[in-house]
């Protein structure tokens, strides 16, 4: 499953690719960033929050391991995290990036307040397995179904305790981004209180 990282008000999708073309050294990870493939490693330096970035292909002169594997163009950066926030100081400017869990975001984007919870697909994919039936009461964290998107599987779990009220898909069904995967109804403890 990919991750949204928001930078300067724009969300970008970043995910590891694990394709066989990866030829760089240990610690280097092949990434797809908005569909663009790069290989990168972030090596800790000796000072607090100091790191050295290796990236291939080099980006605007940043990073760059040459063909012989020489590392003399590593870019020194400063990085620190606070929960989902990442602060990066690169080439004299500081940037603030927010990691957004795609599933949580899709729910936030789609869910109206109150009533029932619809869990929607953050990306197109296919259902691998369905773990519950309509009418089942589930606890928070219970596995509802397993989906696969871009060769990676994700477990869809109940965000809160509830009752399954809609389950239109079965193993093998494919879906579009935004499609309702499963709909839960909150187990109300008080009358009329929105979820």
């Amino acid at each position, binding site marked *: *499953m990919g*991750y949204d*990282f928001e*930078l*300067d008000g724009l969300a*970008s999708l*970043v995910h*590891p690719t*694990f*394709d*066989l073309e990866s030829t760089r050294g240990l610690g280097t*990870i092949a*990434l797809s*960033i*908005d569909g*663009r493939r*790069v290989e*990168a*490693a*972030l090596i800790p330096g000796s*000072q*607090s*929050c100091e*790191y050295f*970035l290796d*990236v291939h292909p080099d*980006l*605007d002169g*940043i*990073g760059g391991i040459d063909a012989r594997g020489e590392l003399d163009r590593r*870019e020194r*950066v*400063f*990085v*620190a*995290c*606070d929960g*989902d*926030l*990442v*602060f*990066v*100081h*690169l*080439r*004299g*400017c*500081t*940037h*603030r*990036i927010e*990691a957004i*869990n795609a599933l949580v975001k899709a729910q936030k984007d789609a869910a109206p307040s109150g009533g029932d919870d619809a869990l929607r697909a953050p990306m197109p994919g296919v259902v*691998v397995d369905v773990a519950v039936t309509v009418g089942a009461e589930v606890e928070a964290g219970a596995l509802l179904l397993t989906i*696969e998107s871009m060769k*990676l*599987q*994700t*477990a869809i779990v109940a965000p809160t305790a509830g009752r399954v009220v809609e389950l239109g898909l079965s193993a093998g069904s494919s879906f579009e981004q935004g499609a309702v995967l499963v709909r839960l109804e909150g187990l109300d403890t008080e009358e009329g209180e929105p979820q």
Partner: protein
Amino acid sequence: MTSIPGIQKTLIANRGEIAVRVAKTLRKLGIASASVVHPQDADSPAARAVDEPCTIEGDTPVSAYLDGNQIIAIARRIGADSLHPGYGFLAENADFAEAVMEAGICWIGPPPAAIRLMGDKIESRRFTAERGIPLTPSVNEEDDPKTFAKRAIEIGLPLLIKASAGGGGKGMQIVRSERELGPAIELARSEAERYFADGRIFAERYVDQPRHVEVQILADGHGNVVHLGERDCSIQRRFQKLIEETPAPMMDDDLRSRICSQAVEVARAAQYQNAGTVEFVLAPNGEFYFLEMNTRLQVEHPVTEMVTGIDLVEEQLRIAAGQTLSFSQNEVRFDGVAIECRVCAEDPDQDFRPAVGRLLLVRPAEGEGLRFDGGIASGQEVSTAFDPMLAKVIAHGRDREEAIRRARRALRESVILGCTTNAAFLERILAHPDFAAGKVETGFIPAHASELGTFELSPDRRTAILAIAALSNRDFLERVRAVPEPYASMGAWQN
């Protein structure tokens, strides 16, 4: 014994970077140091910079630092023989200064009478006008309401119609043509009544594209008054200074010497003692007018220190202890150019909205001619409880070009992580050709707003930043590591 007879232990009645700054000089002189610390500042560099941090309390953090009685009680309790008020808070509160002195504590600042005189805009203008110091020409309505409009026009356009009891930019109307005068007067009067319950208004010549030029004064208790040069503080946003420099750019020596002499005259006439700053408005045509006098040490004092080599806090302590100034006007040396940039927790792209966050890294740039005056450290929480200024980045150079170059490098290489700051924005100002040419005036930032905005990131740059962010994010890395190696097993594996 300390270096200054009579001053053994000083209480700093302030916080943040100025408390750190004053403590540095106290330590240098062997004077015991104490400061008042609100619990929210308990982990701050200011609390750690002094020998004896003392807790103060209040309904809000700001109210604690404004509680004069509590502060004086603490000074007595710990046996402080002197008190330095810093800037802001109670620094220009004449009643507090008097109370400090009545408690037998040496007040590191000007006499209360001078604070009172210069703290009242109307009084200080009257005082200086009587002594022939140039002021922006103005006329009061109440002197003769029937002829007010006529007298206003005689000042010359453009005009500002202002509320006498006004402040904060309220109750001011700009008049650029005779036609606008009548309605502007009506509006100014009604706003004055509504906001200040006082309908008195006056008209003042409005200087378009003014420069803000101020002069640093030092005066001892023996009649000696010197100036330490002028500072140009024209780069401002919302009437707050962001960049200050000395000497003022594009100023001929004759004008410089006249402004500085006027400042000394004002200080002398007011029988001023200790450090102070006389502020002027400089019009594009070279005329200048007295604006006000600040009876305290100012935020931007480091640029003066770097060019003259004088420790202003030390001079304040010596003067307060009754010493004579150790140098005459002729002995003051001015060497090179210094520029200060105020790094603030705010987002210039969001109309300078204050930013909050937990500081994760504070790493000042180091190098030739650089000075970093900050009251911040990693782990500190930046909130809206206090002023958004985090630190001052100051650069000195043999000439203005070198100072600008060093300041730009200092802003790029200083790293503050955890909170949005205006550091990159400040660097863009310094990089602007009009700044390099010395074409500074108080409307600089709005005038160049479109050129000063954040550049859009190139796709390559964006990709690099995102790669770094992804490789730093714990969740992301866990996902990466969870996939079994080698990547040859196709099919189902749990993410």
